[in-house]
C-alpha cells in the first residue's frame, strides 16, 4: 500500500488531481482511496488531499499521517505550511517549480523531483494567467515519479475526466511526464 499526500491551494484543483489518479488506477483494476482534507475550502487558502493505493482492497479508512510520498502543487506553500509532516524517509517530494530538486534544500532523507507545471499549464492555457490550473500536469509528472499507473491509462483518464479542454490537459500531463526532473 502506498500513501500519498497532495498540497495545494483552494481553487487549484488539488482534489481533482487525486480524483484523476483514482480514476486511472481504477481503470487498471487497482484499488485506491482518494480524498480531500476534510474542511472548509476557500480559494487561495492552503488545502491538502490524500491517496491510498494498493493492488488489493483497502480496508483502513482514516487520514494519512505518514505518507510515502508528497506532491506539492504550489511552490509558495513551501515554508507556509508544514509540508513534510510525517513523510517517510526515502519518500518522494514532487514539486511544481522552476527550480531544480537540489535547489529546494529539502532534507537528504527524501528524494526530490520537480516539474514546471505552471509553465506547462500556461502553455496549454489551462486556467487563467493569474491562476493557472496545474493539476493535470502534476499528475502527469506524478505518474513518472511514482509509477503506480501506466501513462496511457492516466492520459485517458484525464481526457475523459476533466470538465473542459480534454486534449490540452492530456498534452500537459504528457509533457509534464516527460519533463520531470528526478533526484534521489
Amino acid at each position: 500500500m502506498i500513501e500519498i499526500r497532495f498540497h495545494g491551494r483552494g481553487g487549484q484543483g488539488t482534489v481533482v488531481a487525486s480524483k484523476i489518479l483514482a480514476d486511472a488506477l481504477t481503470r487498471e483494476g487497482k484499488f485506491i482511496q482518494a480524498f480531500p482534507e476534510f474542511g472548509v475550502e476557500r480559494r487561495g487558502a492552503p488545502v491538502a488531499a490524500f491517496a491510498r493505493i494498493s493492488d488489493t482492497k483497502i480496508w483502513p479508512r482514516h487520514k494519512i499521517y505518514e505518507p510515502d510520498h508528497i506532491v506539492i502543487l504550489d511552490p509558495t506553500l513551501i515554508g507556509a505550511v508544514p509540508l513534510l509532516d510525517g513523510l517517510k524517509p526515502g519518500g518522494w517530494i514532487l514539486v511544481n517549480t522552476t527550480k531544480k530538486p537540489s535547489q529546494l534544500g529539502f532534507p537528504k532523507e527524501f528524494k526530490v523531483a520537480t516539474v514546471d507545471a505552471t509553465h506547462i499549464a500556461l502553455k496549454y492555457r489551462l486556467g487563467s494567467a493569474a491562476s493557472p490550473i496545474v493539476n493535470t500536469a502534476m499528475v502527469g509528472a506524478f505518474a513518472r515519479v511514482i509509477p503506480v499507473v501506466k501513462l496511457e491509462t492516466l492520459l485517458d483518464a484525464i481526457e475523459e475526466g476533466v470538465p473542459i479542454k480534454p486534449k490540452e490537459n492530456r498534452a500537459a500531463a504528457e509533457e509534464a511526464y516527460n519533463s520531470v526532473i528526478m533526484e534521489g
Partner: protein
Amino acid sequence: MRKLTIPREEYMTPGHLACQGCGGALAMRLALKALGKKTILSIPACCWSVIDGPFPYSAAGVPIFHAPFETAASTSAGVAAAMKILGKEDVNVVAWAGDGGTFDIGIQAISGAAERGDNILYIVYDNEAYMNTGIQRSSATPYKAWTTTTPYKFPKARPKKDIIGILAAHKIPYAATATVAYAEDFVKKVKKAASMRGFRFIQVLSPCPPGWKTPPEITIKLARLAVQTGVFPLYEVENGEKYKINIKPKKLKPVIEYLKLQGRFRHLTQEDVDEIQRMVERNWKVLLAREEFSKQIEKIV
C-alpha cells in the same frame, strides 16, 4: 478632500474566513459600523457561520448566537423578548442570514416574527444562492442563472423571489434593499431601521466571487451595476405601503453589462438576455408606478 462617509469604527476584525472579495463580509463590516457595539446577532447556517472563524475565535466583535438554519428570526424573537423583560431594550437585536436562510428555510420564522411585530432587525445578505454548501439554487437565485442544482443545461427556470414584496405584504414598519456598492445608503438604512421598533428588514445584495464565477476585484462593480441596470433597484417600503426608490438612474444601463461579467450567466443566449432585459425593465416600471401608487394610497384615510 477627505470625507468620512461611513462611521470610522471597525467592529469586525480581519483574519476572518471569507473568500477574497466577499460581498457578504463587507456587508457585515458596514452593518456593524451602523449598528455599533450594542448589538446581538443571531446567525443561522450560512457562509457567515464559517466566515466568523472557528472556535474559540470570532471576527464580529459583537455577541453572536450561531443558530439552526431555519431559526434566525425565531431565535432573535427570543433574544428580543429577553431584552424586553430584562430591561435592555437599547440593544439592537439583529438576525443576520443568507438568502437561503431567509427566502427559503427561514421564511416561516420570518413571517411569524413579522406578523407578531417582534422587535428585530433582520438583515439578509443576499448572494443569490446557497454558497456555504457550494452554490446551489435558492429562491433568491436569479432567472436563468447557473448553480450546481440548476446546471447549464437547465438553468433556473423561475424568477427571483420578491422578498421585499412578501415582507411588504406583512405590513412591517420598514423594508429596504441595499447593496455594498452603495455603502452610505446601506449604512443609512441600517441606522434608520435600528432607530425604529418592530420587525424591520433589509436585503443587502452581496456579490460572491466563487458563486457568481467572477473575479474578486469586481465585487463592488457588480453591486453597482446591479443597481444601475435596474436588476436590483434600491428602495424602501414603510408599513408595507410607502415605496421610495433611493437611486433612480436617468437611464438604466443594459443588463448585459452586468450579466456578461459573470460566469453563472455565461450560457445565456441573446434571446435569454433580451428576455431578462424586458423583465428588468418591466419590473422597474412597475416599481416606479408603485411608488406613485403609494403616494395615492397615502391619502386614503
